[in-house]
């Protein structure tokens, strides 16, 4: 194929490969995300250590919560002038914010389908009256003891907001640190931007939304409790089984089957005597390999000649000797290649003469040539993430270099003829020269400087 076309094809292939990789990444991400599900936690999920955490965090958070409350009061004023929906947000912000701390009280939020709230730790209010709720919440933070501030601030109703948007904001908010006021404001801002469905719908919506496959997992609140998805053990078992089976398959595949060889031998005996010994379908691929080898040798030879020309003759014996050895080696390799393909070529020509008259040429799909006896992908054992990354990086790098080398060879061949023709004009030659230099000598990365010295 021509040069430009080849580069085009290469770009297309790269793109296809890249889209394949991004698709793969997306799949992996989804799998990783689905490995854990959020869970509505009742008290039995509390761990003993959380109490210590509470004590530690409390003094710090008290301050922050007070600050937050003030901010929220302000926001509420603003919101009171806007639509009813937005009033839920400060509560939601509260909640999200507070969830940062792993306070056990935070985790208790089950939104039942009937929209009932747990009355235990906070004043239950109807969803429709946000203002009084908020006030109560604010009041609650003052009146109740510190351990209860957070639960008071938790508004189940505001869980609703999570719905379509909540999922967006929740993961983000989970990374927000408590101590940064900036983030608090961010949350507030975010929540004001949340568009909500009707408040009445929200609890049920939240139930639905948060639910994944089972009924018992979802919580509309951003509980920090994550449990592994119930599918995990099954998935792990299947994956381990797959690894095991694959290794077995590889073992089995490498064992020879004498009955099979006997059968093929017997069949072969019924073929015509002059029939090609190797399947002709392999030939085109092998030809490609040979052609590439020949091109490599040829270019090596030319560069050797070039190197010789440019070095000072007669003074560096080592270079002379090296050249000689190189040439000898190249000659030997060429002779080997010639001998190697000679026999196959004869076979092929005989075959081709016949087959072109009554058969259509056929090519193998995919890489099916069994050069070393196996087409099955081997198992690659690696020890660390860094090793795997390095390996795949190297693999791509080798492929890239190979492609660059082939293109370089092709460019040298085709563009070398440029100079045999008389140049049309000085100017255009200079531009062309610059372009050629950059392509051929610098891989397109750098450009030479051309100084036009016109009188």
């Amino acid at each position, binding site marked *: 194929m021509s040069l430009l076309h080849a580069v085009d094809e290469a770009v297309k292939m790269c793109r296809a490969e890249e889209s394949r990789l991004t698709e793969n990444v997306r799949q992996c991400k989804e799998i990783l995300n689905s490995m854990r599900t959020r869970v509505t936690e009742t008290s039995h999920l509390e761990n003993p250590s959380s109490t210590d955490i509470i004590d530690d965090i409390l003094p710090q958070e008290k301050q922050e919560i007070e600050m937050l409350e003030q901010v929220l009061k302000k926001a509420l004023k603003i919101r009171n002038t806007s639509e009813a929906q937005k009033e839920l947000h400060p509560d939601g912000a509260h909640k999200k914010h507070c969830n940062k701390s792993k306070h056990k009280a935070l985790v208790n939020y089950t939104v039942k389908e009937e929209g009932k709230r747990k009355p235990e730790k906070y004043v239950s209010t109807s969803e429709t009256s946000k203002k009084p709720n908020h006030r109560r919440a604010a009041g609650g933070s003052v009146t109740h003891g510190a351990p209860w501030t957070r639960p008071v601030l938790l508004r189940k109703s505001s869980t609703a907001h999570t719905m379509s948007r909540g999922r967006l904001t929740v993961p983000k908010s989970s990374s927000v640190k408590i101590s940064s006021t900036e983030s608090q404001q961010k949350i507030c801002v975010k929540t004001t931007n949340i568009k909500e469905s009707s408040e009445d719908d929200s609890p049920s919506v939240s139930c639905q939304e948060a639910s994944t496959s089972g009924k018992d997992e979802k919580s509309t609140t951003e509980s920090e409790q994550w449990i592994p998805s119930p599918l995990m053990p099954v998935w792990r078992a299947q994956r381990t089984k797959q690894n095991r089976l694959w290794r077995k398959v590889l073992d089995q595949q490498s064992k020879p089957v004498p009955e099979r060889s006997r059968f093929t031998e017997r069949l072969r005996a019924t073929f015509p005597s002059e029939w090609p010994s190797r399947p002709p379908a392999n030939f085109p691929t092998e030809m490609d390999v040979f052609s590439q080898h020949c091109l490599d040798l040829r270019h090596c030879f030319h560069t050797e000649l070039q190197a010789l020309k440019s070095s000072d003759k007669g003074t560096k014996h080592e270079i002379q000797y090296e050249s000689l050895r190189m040439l000898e080696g190249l000659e030997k390799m060429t002779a080997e290649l010639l001998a190697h393909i000679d026999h196959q070529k004869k076979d092929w020509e005989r075959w081709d003469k016949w087959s072109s008259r009554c058969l259509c*040429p056929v090519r193998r799909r995919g890489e099916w040539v069994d050069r070393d006896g196996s087409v099955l992908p081997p198992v690659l054992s690696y020890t660390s993430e860094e090793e795997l990354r390095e390996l795949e990086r190297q693999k791509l790098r080798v492929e890239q270099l190979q492609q660059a080398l082939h293109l370089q060879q092709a460019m040298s061949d085709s563009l070398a003829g440029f100079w045999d023709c008389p140049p049309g004009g000085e100017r255009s030659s200079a531009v062309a020269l610059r372009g050629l230099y950059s392509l051929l000598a610098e891989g397109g990365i750098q450009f*030479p400087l051309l100084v036009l010295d016109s009188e």
Partner: protein
Amino acid sequence: MQRTKSVKVKEVITSLCKLLSGLNVESIPTAETFRRAKFNRKDAVVDMWSLLNRLLQRAFALDCACRDSKHQEFDTQLLFVRSALCYCGYGAPWVVEPRPTSHIEEMESRDLLLALGWLLASGNLLDFLLAEKVYQLDTLSSAPTIPQGPISGLDDLMACGSGEELTVKKDQEIQALQWQYGKLRLQWKSLLSAQEERSKFTHRVISSISSSAVRHPHATGSHQTNMTSTALDKDLERIQALNEILEAYLDWKLHEPLFWCWMDSVMDSSLTDASEVKPAVWPPGGQTVTATCPHGDKTRRAVRQLDKMLLRLQTELRARRIEQATLALASQGGHQGASRLSDRQRMEVEKTVAGYLEGLRLSNTSAITSKGFVPCLQDPQPTKPPRRFHSAEPGLAVTAGKLQASTVLGELREREAVLQWQLERLRQSMRVELQRQASTMEGVILIPPIKR
């Protein structure tokens, strides 16, 4: 005894059919059909024919624009089947010497069965289909890259000639090439970064297979709580499907020897029935031309071109080598004493040259990762002694299809070095050449870029 034997045969064939259906080959005939084909029954012909056709279509494709092999016409199908069978090395009489048959009923089911046997026995069709399945179903596997065919720069991109127009055209072509090449480089960069990301996530998924800790999903922005659990579901389904196929494969492998014994018996019955038919005379001379395909000369051209190139190269090499040898001899003979190369120097040079040539040879072989691979995190404490992966010979590292990452990395680095060396040599020679050209041009001074 006969009963158990026939039951066994049925079992064996059923395991093959199960494997084939797992590999997505459609409408597989029953084991009974196979057995009827052994006895050359007519009613098995259609089924066997369609199976053979389907399998061949999975393995081969027509390389010409003749007729679409998916057509239902028997003629087209026959041409495809014969071509494909011949190309994979099958030389039975009905394939080599076409009888003027245009009806499927005239086919012999036993012939078809034997052809099927050949297809499965020679080459690695089943393995190939299995590998395809693995890449399809296992998200963590790394598929092989399809190599680009050799690029012939000798198709003259730049026609020689004179005139302003031609120069302009050349300029345009060079510019177009520069542009495309730049695009390619950019594409590679984004490909490399996509690969980095993929490795990262692959590793995460792999490590969660064995780890007991549940990892936090980083804020990857996945906000579809409903959907994410189904991703695991889907993967589970895929892996379960793959496991079934692998089990079917292992089952088949268990029964394989028996299958080939049975195929032997099929051959026996075929030979006894057709004792007077001798192998076809091939290549047939003076045959009437039945159907010529005008598209088959791509390989022919490549062969001719390669021939020419190699012979010319050989001649040039020989001439230059002799010249060089006499030159070296003369210069050595002239300056006596100190300027002669010492033995040590000679050896060093020879070693260097051998290294270069070895590199050339290496770049011609396919990389160890060319088949793709299935990554697997190694246990930090293996329960059994590890295999000898760290041996010096790279061949041993591929014991039974198992690779060690460190070995592979070593080989890849070697390759990279060789390719880099080749590329640099080519570029250097181009630099010299172009600078020389520039010096012949009047009024132009070329200053090469500074090496960074």
